[in-house]
């Protein structure tokens, strides 16, 4: 594993921070790659929420890496053990890389259940306690291309004591060492990469210690845990990320857990993050909303149309910008979306976003989506998930383009416009 094949090749690093490049050497044969900054494909047990493979594949340019979580998988250990061929095949996924994380970033995880030796995940049948042995047994049957090592991430709540934070850093390092021992002795995991998890809550010294120690281990990359939306404001998050990334080797990827809002993604990319989880479009879908924020920075004639779209968002009036920093906010609407349940869309025969090439926008109108939502029809989730996924991954594409063309400020301007005073106060 010291000879990890996963390598970040940069085409551009801006001000020593924002990193544009390609993560190469992915997959067990090392032939695959993904662009950074980028995001993984969010799934429930290998399925993008609401979507079958048919509806999913109406989308082009999907991420090459699919995220699955042990919180979904752990309760199905037995059948996967019998199946033997790994989760990818079990789930009917063919052409994708698999990243296995511990928790579902969109599902709150109750605290108070970790011990020195165990962490807990919550599946449909309740809590499942994982020791390193069970955690690694699961990795062996899942057979992902990479996974995060076991971690004690219970420090995201405000006012977690310094003592608890220190304990979480220590435990997480111990878990990592134990995972690595099992990993190196497991033929099944040959060619599989491990990401070490950086903890440390909101305490700078603990963050630095966690990063420094994790970086000493033979890991392929790093997950930054405990910085998720709702746990702290972006100013503090940016500071902590900056301090952590200083301790991390340049050529290994950094994945930020639990952050998905476009404004926060932009700030975290500027602070040096590479990878994100795409649970945000799912959350937007679940509240019956459609992403509509503008990220188009190419000077083309269609500009005028998009301008109109952005303008409409500005005057929407009843959008409730998500400003307070508590976890409840994750279910509240942000200013990057429109609420299609709102009566004003009842007779709006425009697509969700003018110019969007997704299946939903090419075939359906806001009025229809409004109808599906007020009548509680399942197709609402399907169509919204298609659009929101397309829009979100489009945003990441635009982000890379902006980095390539030195237009990050212009993109930030576009994305944050319409957030009004909210943005001013925060930054």
């Amino acid at each position, binding site marked *: 594993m010291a000879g990890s094949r996963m390598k970040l090749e940069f085409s551009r690093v801006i001000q020593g921070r924002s990193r544009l490049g390609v993560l190469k050497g992915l997959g067990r044969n090392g032939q695959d790659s993904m662009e950074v900054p980028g995001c993984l494909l969010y799934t429930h*047990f290998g399925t993008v929420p*609401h979507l079958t*493979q048919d509806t999913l594949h*109406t989308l082009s340019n999907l991420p090459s890496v699919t995220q699955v979580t042990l919180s979904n998988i752990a309760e199905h250990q037995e059948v996967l053990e*019998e199946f033997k061929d790994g989760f990818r095949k079990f789930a*009917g996924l063919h052409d994708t890389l698999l990243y296995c994380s511990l928790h579902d970033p969109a599902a709150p995880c109750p605290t108070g259940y970790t011990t020195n030796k165990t962490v807990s995940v919550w599946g449909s049948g309740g809590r499942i306690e994982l020791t390193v042995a069970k955690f690694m047994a699961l990795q062996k049957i899942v057979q992902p291309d990479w996974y995060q090592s076991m971690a004690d991430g219970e420090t995201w709540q405000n006012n977690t004591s310094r003592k608890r934070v220190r304990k979480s850093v220590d435990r997480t390092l111990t878990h990592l060492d134990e995972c690595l021992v099992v990993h190196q002795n497991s033929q099944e995991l040959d060619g599989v990469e491990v990401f070490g998890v950086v903890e440390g809550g909101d305490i700078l010294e603990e963050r630095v210690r966690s990063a420094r120690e994790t970086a000493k281990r033979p890991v392929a990359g790093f997950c930054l845990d405990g910085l998720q939306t709702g746990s702290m404001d972006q100013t503090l998050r940016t500071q902590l990320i900056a301090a952590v990334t200083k301790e991390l080797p340049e050529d290994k990827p950094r994945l930020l857990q639990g952050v998905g809002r476009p404004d926060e993604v932009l700030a975290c990319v500027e602070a040096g993050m590479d990878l994100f989880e795409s649970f945000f479009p799912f959350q937007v879908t679940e509240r019956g909303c459609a992403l509509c924020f503008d990220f188009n920075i190419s000077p083309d004639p269609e500009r005028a149309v998009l301008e109109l779209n952005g303008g409409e968002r500005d005057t929407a009036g009843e959008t409730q910008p998500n400003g307070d920093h508590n976890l409840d906010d994750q279910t509240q609407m942000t200013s990057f979306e429109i609420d299609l349940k709102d009566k004003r869309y009842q007779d709006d025969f425009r697509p969700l976003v003018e110019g969007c090439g997704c299946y939903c926008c090419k075939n359906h109108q806001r009025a*229809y989506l409004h109808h599906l939502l007020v009548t509680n029809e*399942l*197709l609402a989730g399907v*169509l919204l998930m298609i659009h929101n996924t397309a829009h979100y991954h489009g945003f990441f594409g635009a982000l890379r383009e902006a980095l390539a063309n030195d237009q990050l400020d212009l993109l930030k301007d576009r994305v944050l416009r319409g957030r009004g005073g909210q943005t001013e106060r925060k930054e």
Partner: protein
Amino acid sequence: MAAVIECGADIDTTPENHMSLKKTLSSASPLTLRIVAECSVTKARACDLVLPHCTVSTPVFMPVGTQGTLKGITVDQLEGLGCQICLGNTYHLGMRPGPDLIEKANGLHGFMNWKRNLLTDSGGFQMVSLVELSEVTEEGVKFKSPYDGKEILLSPEKSISIQNSLGSDIMMQLDDVVSSTVTGPRVEEAMHRSIRWLDRCIAANKNPDKQNLFAIIQGGLNADLRKTCLDEMTKRDVPGFAIGGLSGGEEKDDFWRMVTLSTDHLPREKPRYLMGVGYAVDLVVCVALGCDMFDCVFPTRTARFGSALVPWGSLQVKHKQYAKDLQPIDPDCKCPTCKRHSRAYLHALFKSDTAAMHHITIHNIAYQLTLMRSVRQSIVEGHFPEFIRTFMKRMFPSRDQYPSWAVDALASVNVTLE
């Protein structure tokens, strides 16, 4: 009219096809029925039903998209499964989003972006079954809106007006629905009223050149009343007939006798739609009795509870016994679900995501449509009776489990099950 012209170019030279075409042209309805084959043993037939949006191969099962959507399935997926016609419910759509909005969206086709045919019901059935305080008078069905409590009258004219706004290819007349288990004078009253309402519906249709209006044969389980209704309604120049008032909890013995009585007296050159029937055995038997079109919410509703339809009955994907079963739902099924996913994966997915339901819904629609395509093919190839025997053998573990009504019904059309 485009459909008729298109059919004219495609015309068969057999005399009966000439006749049916002429009849269609004279009534100027946007529907043509070409009989492709008739079973020489049973009353089954295979037809091409030419409708404004495309030709439907019958016998056909029509999936139900109550509120302008088919339970989590996109219109492209539905088209991909080979569906040529599906249903919308006038009662639901008339309430939400309402006929005005749908008209603005270029009809239900435009609103849901469905390129093929649509059939809408009259709204009467839902009203009587869903709304507690409904009252039927000669005027129509009076009820209180469950959304705003306002009193609404659904008259034959109103039903047709809503269906004209929806723009469906086939509209159903408003009929006076009584439960099939009710007997006595109320059944006779409902039958006569349904005839009067048919005339009002015919008169109210603003788009007879674009939208077909079907009559609904009533008369409960009383053969004389059914016969009277058939005699009266077949005098009207409607493009098709539905057999109504059945499939509501009556004895199957009564059910099939009413079906076969109806098909005996319905004109050969017009389509016959048996309402609310969709269980596989019922479909096969009623095709043998001469029905062409069927609809039922069962295959899509049951899918959401994890029940997958298979040639040997059904398979409860959520049951523990499938947790480690790595076969597809039906190894012979060619639907997107069976091509990719195992019972074990679907079993597990039911615990994580609603997409599990969509997978089963797709499979169940595929099952229904494939069953009807196989039925049609066997009629065309002249071995429908043999198909029935094979189908029954597969569906039931042994001969003594065949439902007696099905055995009797099939015997009535000369098919004996060994």
